[in-house]
Every structure is written in structure tokens, then in C-alpha cells.
């Protein structure tokens, strides 16, 4: 067995009483005070997340744009410097390698943020596709700490630690700023369905910045949030998780990520397969459902209609903000209409569920 990796914040989590679990080759905090409490803290006040396990790949050089744009399904030409693009990245057959964020640092410089457990695979995929291109690739994951501060109070708390005017950073844009004196990339992005920021800086400052944020945020209700609540938060907001809603077996179109797939682009890897899928019509799609009967849907539980398996649950949980049991699942196209009922096979028992509108949760608009 390979040894598990720890983020530079590991000691801070242990000190805070976190329960630590293995996740994607990392020892990560799954919870501190409890998943439900942390979830609600993030929705109503603010949560602080250590997401340093995420991978970062630096792409630089005259062919950087060309490389990135042929790897992603979204259109890199749409964004300006200091803007961020979300995109799936596909194989030739339309299956997903990973989903990622592209930060545009300069016309010839991009910063890619990928899922922790896919970092090595993704980096290899970049390298393989960069042959004959004039581009320099570097896996800078180990040199980068990423923390997220999310929730309605996030901006007010973070602003106390930086001169950078956070109100000027729009959704899916970033800026450079000093955070407690440390050079950082500050972006208005997240994976919770709340307003908030993701911040990147070097590992030496990790514990100091983390402790400082906890300290200045305490009054506003800031608390650390583990991976358990990160998952329930993203599920309520219907944000997909690689390996669940999309994978090498589930295309971005099937996953419902069509708006991030620009089939009009001249070329990207997987385009032919996805154009074909689109033309022939999708045979299955990811939908959101809620349990009508009593029970909690879990990943991989079969979805049944009239005794026949029509799909499976890709993610499911009790939803703390809704006090309901909800899930995402991939089902045959004829069962995707709103209000369609089917059964989730929970330990051999069919429990009724019905297709509902997603996102399950919308953040409350201010003003």
C-alpha cells in the first residue's frame, strides 16, 4: 500500500478535533463538529475548507492556449485574463477524463485546477497531448495550498485579511492579492452553492493563514467544514462530482453538462463522439430525484421501474438544508421527465422516488 498524503494543514485539523479519513490517496478531515452542523454553518454563515488535495497544473508557452483548448470541451476563447472557465475534459470516445477550472493568467499562461484523485492521470494526459507543441507543463500541486471560504459571510471575513477589494471580483473571476502578507490568487468560485472564494498560496503560510481566518471569522460564525459537508453542500447545489455524475463511462452531455460543451468549436478531443451522441439523441441522462418513501439513496443503488433496472444512483444523501432525502441518478431517457416516479433499490427493497427540478437548493439572493 502506498502511504497516504497529508496537506500542510493536517496538524490544524487534528488539533481542531477533526475525524480523519482516506480520500483519493489523502488523509483528509471528513468532519469536525458534525456534518449537519457544518453544512448549516456554511449555508447561514461561513465555512472554511482545506482543499489542498486538489491538483494544480501550470501551462505556459506559445502553444498553451492551443493545448488547453483542444483538451477541454468548453471554449477557452470566451474568457479574458483573470477570468476562470469550468470545463469537462474528454477522451476521444466522449468519456470524461476529469472536470476542471482553467484560470487565464495571460494569453500564453493558464493555471488548471483538477480533482485530487485525478491529478497524476490528468497531468499525464496533458503531457501526452502536448507532444510537438511549444508549451511548458508543471504539476505544481505539492507547491500549492488551496483553501475555500464559502457562505454568506465569506467576503466580509476574508476582506479583513486583505487589501485587495473583494467586492470587485465577480463570479468566476480572480485577482492577485496579499492575504495576511502572503501572495495569493483569490478567486470567486466554489463547490457549495454559496457565494465565496477559493484561495491559492504557498504551503509555508498554510497554518498561519488558516488559524488567522478561523480567528477573525469566529465572531461572524466561521467554522471549519470537512469533506462530509462539502459533499452534501455540492449535492444540494447539483454540482457534479467526478466518478459519480460523470466519468470515463458517462459523457458530459449525459451528465447534464451540455452548456459546458461547445460542439461548435473547431476541434476538441471527444468532439466527434459527442456530436454523434447529440445527433442520435441521448439514451440516458443524469436527473435529480427526491425520496417519496422512507430511505436514503446511496451511490450505485439500482433504479428500478416495473421490476426492470433503468439506471443507478450516482450520488445520494440526506440533504440538511432541505430536510429531505435526495439524489442524482443516471436513468434511461424515457424516465427523465419531472414527476416521473421510480423505485430505488435500497438493500433489496424498492422505495419510491420521483424526479424533481434541480438544483435542489438555491442560495438566497441578498438585497
Amino acid at each position: 500500500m502506498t502511504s497516504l498524503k497529508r496537506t500542510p494543514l493536517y496538524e490544524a485539523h487534528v488539533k481542531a478535533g477533526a475525524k480523519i479519513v482516506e480520500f483519493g490517496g489523502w488523509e483528509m478531515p471528513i468532519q469536525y463538529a458534525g456534518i449537519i452542523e457544518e453544512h448549516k454553518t456554511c449555508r447561514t454563515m461561513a465555512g472554511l475548507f482545506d482543499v489542498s488535495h486538489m491538483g494544480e497544473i501550470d501551462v505556459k508557452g506559445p502553444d498553451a492556449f492551443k493545448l488547453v483548448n483542444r483538451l477541454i470541451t468548453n471554449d477557452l476563447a470566451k474568457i479574458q485574463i483573470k477570468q476562470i472557465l469550468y470545463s469537462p475534459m474528454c477522451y476521444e470516445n466522449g468519456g470524461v477524463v476529469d472536470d476542471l477550472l482553467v484560470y487565464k493568467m495571460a494569453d500564453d499562461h493558464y493555471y488548471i485546477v483538477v480533482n485530487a484523485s485525478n491529478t497524476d492521470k490528468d497531468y499525464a494526459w496533458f503531457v501526452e497531448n502536448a507532444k510537438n507543441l511549444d508549451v511548458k507543463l508543471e504539476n505544481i500541486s505539492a507547491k500549492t495550498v488551496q483553501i475555500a471560504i464559502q457562505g454568506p459571510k465569506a467576503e466580509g471575513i476574508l476582506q479583513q485579511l486583505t487589501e485587495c477589494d473583494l467586492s470587485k471580483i465577480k463570479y468566476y473571476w480572480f485577482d492577485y492579492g496579499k492575504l495576511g502578507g502572503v501572495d495569493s490568487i483569490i478567486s470567486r468560485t466554489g463547490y457549495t452553492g454559496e457565494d465565496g472564494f477559493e484561495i491559492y498560496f504557498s504551503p509555508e503560510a498554510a497554518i498561519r493563514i488558516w488559524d488567522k481566518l478561523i480567528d477573525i471569522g469566529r465572531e461572524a460564525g466561521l467554522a471549519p467544514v470537512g469533506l462530509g459537508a462539502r459533499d452534501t453542500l455540492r449535492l444540494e447545489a447539483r454540482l457534479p462530482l467526478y466518478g459519480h455524475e460523470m466519468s470515463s463511462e458517462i459523457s458530459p452531455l449525459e451528465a447534464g453538462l451540455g452548456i459546458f460543451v461547445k460542439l461548435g468549436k473547431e476541434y476538441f478531443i471527444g468532439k466527434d463522439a459527442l456530436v454523434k451522441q447529440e445527433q442520435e439523441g441521448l439514451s440516458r441522462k443524469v436527473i435529480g430525484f427526491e425520496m417519496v418513501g422512507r430511505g436514503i439513496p446511496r451511490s450505485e443503488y439500482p433504479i428500478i421501474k416495473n421490476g426492470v433496472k433503468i439506471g443507478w444512483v450516482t450520488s445520494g444523501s440526506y440533504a440538511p438544508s432541505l430536510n429531505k432525502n435526495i439524489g442524482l441518478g443516471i436513468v434511461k431517457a424515457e424516465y427523465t421527465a419531472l414527476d416521473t416516479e421510480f423505485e430505488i433499490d435500497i438493500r433489496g427493497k424498492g422505495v419510491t422516488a420521483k424526479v424533481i427540478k434541480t438544483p435542489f437548493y438555491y442560495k438566497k439572493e441578498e438585497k
Partner: protein
Amino acid sequence: MENPKDLKYTKDHEWVRVEGTKAVIGVTDTAQSLMGDVVFVELPEPGSEYGAGDAAANIESVKAVSEVFMPVGGKIIEVNMELEDSPDLINKDAFGEGWILVVEMSDPGDLDNLLSVEEYGKLIAEGE
């Protein structure tokens, strides 16, 4: 939290309170702490029969499902209906209001296989 001295225990972190030929069954405070927030409890039908070691109920926390194995065999004569609306009673009061079911024991000899509070305490200490 201390494990009550008047109960018997299993290695699966269940407790048993013997009341004559009946046994009240629940999960220990250590169990609820390992599971985290309990959000659903699937209870068996009263009247159904289970052998010792059979899975009779399921406790679902936000993250995972845990089975409740019968420490002793017999017929279920009562289940804790309060858990339907307040599954978190297991977190709040694992040894009290968070009880799960009552069984009419078919073989009181099953009790011989259970752990004393000292044995259970040792088991937890070793697990940490």
C-alpha cells in the same frame, strides 16, 4: 461517555439490557460517535423473528449505513417508533431514549456470548 455497568455489550458496539426474558437493544455511545449524525433508522417489524447475529435494523448517518446485528435471538416485541421522527436520539442519548428494539429472547444462553462492561471497555481502548 461512560458505558453503563448494568448493560451487556457486543464487539459490534451494541448494548443489551436484560429485563427477565426480554432484552432491550441499542447501540453504544462509541457507535453513535463513529457513525456521526444519524438521519434515518430502518426498524424491523414487530413480531418478526431473528437469530443471534442476524442484521435486524439499519442506522443511516449522513455518510454511511450501519447494520444492527441482533446480540440475542428471538421475536421482536417492540421497536422505538420515536426514532422515525427523531433518529438523532441515537446521537443524543444512545443508552437511553435512543434504544432501538425489544426482543423476547428465544435462548437466554445467547447472553453468555456477550461482553461485560469491562471487556467492552478494553475492546474500545484497543481499537483506538
